């Protein structure tokens, strides 16, 4: 099933790719269950493209202005073809509405997705480091360094975001290619699990919540992986946390839990109107800090208070960023 989809992606790209274009997709990385972003400029490289349950990294991040400056060759005149899961497609919508890239530059290719495997979760359940990881229709098969074999049910190994099918719906946008049967995909979604997962905010007293946040964030090493992977964080080198030479210092560099809490609070407030709930920050965190306790809560607030879901369309005006109702984005 997955293999078929991979072939379809490659076939579509072979048809729409033109010399001078860039393709952003996934390819295999050397370690088991690792996929990595691929930037392809040649037709013969299209066969390296992979799409399977291990394509966890969101490629939307690479579209924003600063990243394009790094990646694109000088005088790039072509189109960017970007392969996305439906959740990442929403981050691409957000990138459009944040005016980080012009829609005319991009060919969005959305792939029908049944869920992505949480590799870290699987690794935690194995006694030793994994040397092989394969998928079948319903299972993940692993072998560890001592030769011991494991079988995991896919439905128990999804990334957190994939457990709530509302993250998987498609944006209101007519400019994308869909790989797979779109109608069938939409029907399938209705039968998938949809629920508001309980957050600590629902079950804990303010005091307990404070303790929980303190405890989780005390492990943070302030590596900034959560910020840098976030498709909604596009301030890049101008970020207020980066030794701002000409700006007021918001948070001391001193790594204390208080400063760390401040860092996260500022960041999550700042991206609240842009955060699509893609979960990349949580996935990127090398310390496995459950950052969903923040962004899922903010997502919910945005929806309940403003009726607004970031990434739903390509041109919705951001809430919280304008001074007056009806004001245009600068």
């Amino acid at each position, binding site marked *: 099933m997955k293999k078929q989809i991979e072939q379809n992606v490659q076939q579509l790209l072979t048809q729409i790719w033109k010399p001078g274009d860039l393709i952003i997709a996934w390819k295999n990385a050397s370690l088991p269950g690792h996929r*990595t972003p691929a930037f392809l400029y040649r037709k013969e490289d299209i066969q390296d493209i992979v799409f399977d349950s291990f394509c966890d990294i969101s490629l939307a991040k690479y579209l924003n202005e600063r990243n394009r400056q*790094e990646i694109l060759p000088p005088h790039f005149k072509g189109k960017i073809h970007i392969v996305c899961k439906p959740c990442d497609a929403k981050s691409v919508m957000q990138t459009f509405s944040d005016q980080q890239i012009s829609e005319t530059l991009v060919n969005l290719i959305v792939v029908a997705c049944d869920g992505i495997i949480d590799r870290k979760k699987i690794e935690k359940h194995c006694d030793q480091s994994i*040397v092989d990881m394969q998928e079948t229709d319903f299972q993940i098969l692993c072998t560890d360094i001592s030769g011991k074999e494991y079988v995991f049910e896919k439905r128990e190994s999804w990334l957190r975001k994939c457990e709530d099918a509302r993250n998987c719906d498609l944006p209101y946008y007519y400019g994308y290619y869909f790989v797979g049967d779109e109608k069938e995909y939409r029907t399938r979604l209705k039968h998938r699990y949809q629920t508001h997962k309980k957050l600590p905010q629902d079950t804990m007293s303010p005091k307990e919540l404070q303790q929980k946040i303190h405890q989780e964030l005390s492990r943070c090493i302030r590596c900034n992986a959560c910020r840098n992977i976030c498709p909604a964080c596009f301030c890049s*080198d101008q970020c207020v946390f980066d030794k701002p030479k000409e700006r007021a210092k918001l948070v001391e560099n001193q790594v204390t839990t208080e400063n760390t809490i401040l860092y996260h609070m500022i960041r999550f407030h700042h991206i609240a109107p842009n955060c699509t709930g893609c979960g990349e920050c949580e996935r*990127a965190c*090398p310390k496995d800090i459950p950052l969903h306790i923040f962004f899922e809560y903010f997502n919910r607030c945005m929806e309940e208070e403003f009726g607004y879901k970031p990434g739903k369309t390509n041109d919705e005006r951001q809430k919280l960023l304008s001074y007056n109702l009806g004001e245009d984005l600068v």
Partner: protein
Amino acid sequence: MRKRLKINNLQAFLQELQKQATLIAPVKTDAGEREFRPVEQVADIVLEGSNPLRSPKEYLFPQMETLYTFHLQKDGKATLKETLHNEPQIILGIRPCDLHAIAYVKEFYSTTHQDVYVLEKWKHTILIGWACQNPLNTCFCTSVGNSPVDSKGADIMMAKTDSFYLVEVLTVKGKDLIEKIPSLLEDSPEADNEVLPSIQKQTESMIREKVDLLSIKGRIDSAYSSSIWKSYSDVCIACGACTFNCPTCTCFDSADLLETCQDGCRYRTWDTCQNYAFTLHASGHNPRATREARLRQRVMHKYQYSVEQLGLFSCTGCGRCTRSCPVNIDMVSIIKDIKEVVDHGEE
């Protein structure tokens, strides 16, 4: 001097160590991960299992450290007070890769300049190594000329066998410590010579790949203008997670913090070369403005510049950069590409 420790005596041995100094060892935390932490109860120590993501480097070179405090007196004079932390500590369960890392950090901070903060701590630290039997799929210590049982840099080296622990005392510091706790250890027979080599053979057979970097040591800068850097830096999001978990990264930034109008401190925190602002000049010029330049700097420092400076690779092959990279950039792929370019040139 080599001794044996009965399996049953381990707890008692650890308790004795704990009586001598602050004992730091891998313990299971509330979050379920293993980390080097000051030990409260020796029963919490988990020596086996994969190497923790955070290296023990932070007990010599902490992520954040106050260098001195200052105080403005009523008479207008200022006083400075240096804050040296030099309580004795024992770090237990250090893998050979991290022993190398600590040796490198110590070497770095005694050569380029004398960093009293690191060196004082080092003087008061006893390092107890642990022969590695649980490599990860990211490990590549053999590629940089290390081995999973190498005891270089340790004061005492320990290894686990099925029936006992081997305790090898390597330095005067280690001897002084062991002499304070004599009763638990037994003599080790000649046959124990085989313990480390057999662990080495076993562990090395599990390490995924060996890229022979020793054969190109000192010549790696010939890959400087190669196109390999861009192929990785396109993917890199310049977060710096790799450098914050690397046991040999030594860069820091310092700043002053005013607590009141009279009191404050100067502190330092780790910094990362992957950040744009790291080399940003006040003029606005940035000599390493691109991610390509920054990623190359990180890798070149590990394999070339530190060789020029100190004759050492400053990568120990611990694989923590690969483990922490959110976009799956793999150091082994990078060094494979480097070797290819150095040996055979660009295609």
